[in-house]
């Protein structure tokens, strides 16, 4: 199970990184969102994988580590705020500049995917 989990997180990360390296804003925002999922899964797993031991007192004999969960919970919400901020930044940039290119066309002509 641990290997499966780790591989999944790895693939998720790889796909996010690939998206972040694109030249247009929308894939980048999706990439950031997905990367935050991957990071959350990674952080969460520092409490190790435990099944059926919810950290609710009285629900069982032993409990999984609640601390990473608390950290990840706020991370999810902050991640949402970041996604929202970046997507609206992208919209604003589109409105102001008229393009969704993320490369500065004036100083650099190495952009692709036009």
């Amino acid at each position: 199970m641990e290997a499966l989990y780790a591989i999944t997180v790895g693939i998720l990360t790889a796909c996010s990184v690939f998206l972040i390296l694109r030249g247009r804003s929308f894939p980048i925002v999706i990439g950031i969102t997905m990367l935050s999922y991957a990071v959350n899964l990674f952080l969460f797993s520092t409490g190790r994988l435990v099944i059926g031991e919810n950290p609710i007192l009285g629900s069982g004999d032993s409990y999984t580590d609640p601390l990473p969960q608390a950290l990840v919970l706020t991370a999810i919400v902050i991640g949402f705020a970041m996604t929202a901020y970046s997507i609206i930044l992208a919209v604003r940039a589109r409105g102001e500049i008229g393009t969704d290119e993320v490369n500065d066309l004036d100083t650099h002509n190495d952009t692709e995917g036009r």
Partner: protein
Amino acid sequence: MSLLLILLLPLVGTALPLLMRQTSRAAITWSALLPTLAALSLLLYSAPQTLAGQTPQFLFPWLSNLGLDIALRLDGLSLLFAGLILGIGVLIIAYAHYYLSSKDDVPRFYTSLLLFMAAMLGIAMADNLLFMWVFWELTSLSSFLLIGYWYHSSDARRGARMALAVTGGGGLALLAGILLLGHIVGSYQVDDVISAAAEIREHALYVPILLLVLLGAFTKSAQFPFQFWLPHAMAAPTPVSAYLHSATMVKAGIFLMARLHPVLAGSEWWFYIVTLTGLVTLLVGAYFAILKHDLKGLLAFSTISHLGLITMLLGIGSQVAVVTALFHIINHATFKASLFMIAGIIDHESGTRDMRKLNGLLSYMPITATVAMVAAASMAGIPPFNGFLSKEMFFDASVQQHLFGGLSWALPALATLGAMLSVAYSIRFIHDVFFNGEPKDLPKTPHDPPRMMLLPVFILVLLCIAIGLLPMTLVQGVLMQAVAAVTLRLPELDIALWHGFNMPLLMSAIALVGGAVIYLSRHHLFSFNRQFDAIDAKQLFEHAVQRSTDRASAFFERFDTGSLQRYLALIFVTVLLMLIPAVAEINFLGGSRPQLPIDMVSMVGAILLVVGAMGVAIFHRQRLTALLMLSVVGLMVSLAFAHFSAPDLAMTQLIVEVVSILLMILALFFMPQRTARASSGHRVARDVIIASGIGGLVASLNYAILTRPFESISDFFLANAKTGGGGTNVVNVILVDFRGFDTLGEITVLAIAAAGIHKLLNKLRPFMPSSDVDGRPWHRIRHPLMLTTVARMLLPMALIVGVYIFMRGHNLPGGGFIAGLITASAMILQYMASGVDWVKARFDLNYQSLMSVGVLIATLTGLGSWVFDKPFLTSWFTYLEWPLVGKFEFATALLFDLGVYLTVIGATMMILANFGKMTTRHRPTQEGN
């Protein structure tokens, strides 16, 4: 306490002239004068203690674990400098009142001046070396403002920049030196450092420390080869030159050498470096002073020369040398400040400072000429003025030292040469300006200035005479204590005009005659000097600065190409390069922790997740498909949380997923519809390699973590959640209680992000397509009936569920974050189903206020524990018996969670509702909407 006041009065006083801007010039001057006078009288009030041999000290712990405390002392050395700073400061303020023209920004001048004064006082009175350094840099900054006071002139701006670069840069070296000292001693307190002097001199770091500290001192005091900034600082208004570049700032380096004299002096290194630097500076300064045609230029180089003299004396370091050095500081301040003021008066009244035009002013301004002659005579070292006394003593000290062995005679010989030059430029100052024929086409017809403008000069010149005649009466007390602070023992002073026929007197006589000869043959000197190419220090300096900025920009342009893709690729590659060796060091990737078997559900979930993620990556140009794939990923992540015992996370993730996808679909409307051409195969290949590398590393790390046993601090939380926090949902108790401070920070961040988004949307003119990509118009039914009906029915239920989830959160999965998101999504559904107009007509909530109230409630809950004398955010809970409901737990944590709840609703709604409004007439168009 009065020590602190002495420092604070000018510091607080900096605000006064600015506040008085609307009033008369006189009132502004008084507003600067009064704090200075008050500080001066406080200083005089504290002086008797110091003169009696005590050292009043003041200590207020500040950043004690860094060794930085607000520590002040008033020993003899501090008293001497503080007295000069405040005393001459008063005169300068009065003088500037007449000097500045009606066009000048007078309040700004006085504010900068007072700031500078406070900074100098801080240096003089600091009892902690780090604390002193803070003021050291403050003098650099405030002198930058003062030199650049006439910022419309490019000379002023360049001079200011050069002074800042040189003195500020030296300051950094000094900081390094001070930190090393603190490293050895373990304290920055002056007394501690002095008592560890022997240890420091033995230490291997002694030479680096000495060099760094001297670098700071030499740059500040314009010692060779750093003397070049001082003449260019003469672009400042003359009161500034009189104050900074004669009496105070340039003496800060001298002060530093005196302050650290007990610690650093006494070695050969100190002796050779300091003495020789001083000697070279003395001669170079004096030589160039003769050559200058500009009055202030002459005085600037003469200042450099005299600073060199004092430095040299400190280098010699004998008791008599130190006495002479400190005595000369007083004398130099008096005659040089008055000479600068006179130069300013001449400039002010005649319109030029060029000595080739200024001739024969004696008949035009006789009073000025008289005081100028006294001051210049003191500078030349002619009896009975104070300059003569210190010059004799200087000769005496140079004769008495035998530090250069068989070549020791060179020192008195060169000292006499320096004195000769000094006599020559003093004669030039007087003869060229006041005699020597008639003035040549002056811009104005000169005359004596108003009496009050001359008053500060009179006072200084009177001091020159009085100290010359009655040295022991006037300065013995402070000089004794000052010398004691430098050499750690009280000297025996015997300063007098007449010591009989001796070597120093002979040297003085030679200097006088020689100086006169040099002056008479000055034209030969001018033509001699013309053979050399004039090296313009300013141009050299500017070129050096230009070259280094060019190099830096060239370097950065290679990275700063304006391409986000490139930046990110560089960052990721760096991550790879740094991580690969670290991960490679792990011997066995798998650890000893027993692993779980793979079950069918997990397998399917993982496959779906992987397919979803890869789908997003592959179909990212088909945006809607990509979004649907992304939602699959989000859902699977949420299920993973649920599967691995994290119900709270599962719920949060689920709702966040819904809200994020909604937001992105909204955003799609404003983004380009046409799919762009794919990246080149080359680039895709590169990115796939980078991405796989990162993914592989993350997977390896994650596997390594997962398979290793671990110790957690969570046992504490599990044990205390119920008894200490009053809840059984440990995750929620951690959020609102144990780690409540973190959560408070996080909801604040959320609120800031929402506010930022609000601002981004303000006045945004988004790109709004009127049809879809194939030219078909949008559907005319905006709000489908089915959705509208179902959404309205759902709303009350969703709200109740939200409240329920919130209330139970302390004990069962739920809480403010989740409940807030549920409530927000229920409301968003109404916007989608029925439109902005419909929602606005029914509940017109101000989401900003809601959000602010949320943060406020959370903060106030935390502050509330202060009322009960508990630390911030201490929680408290009790059980209440409610009718019908039964036993009910009430915790302050619940109140805190309410704050979280409201913030999350407010922030989420602000983001989504405002964004949704973009296409309607309600879109935010004004500030504060």
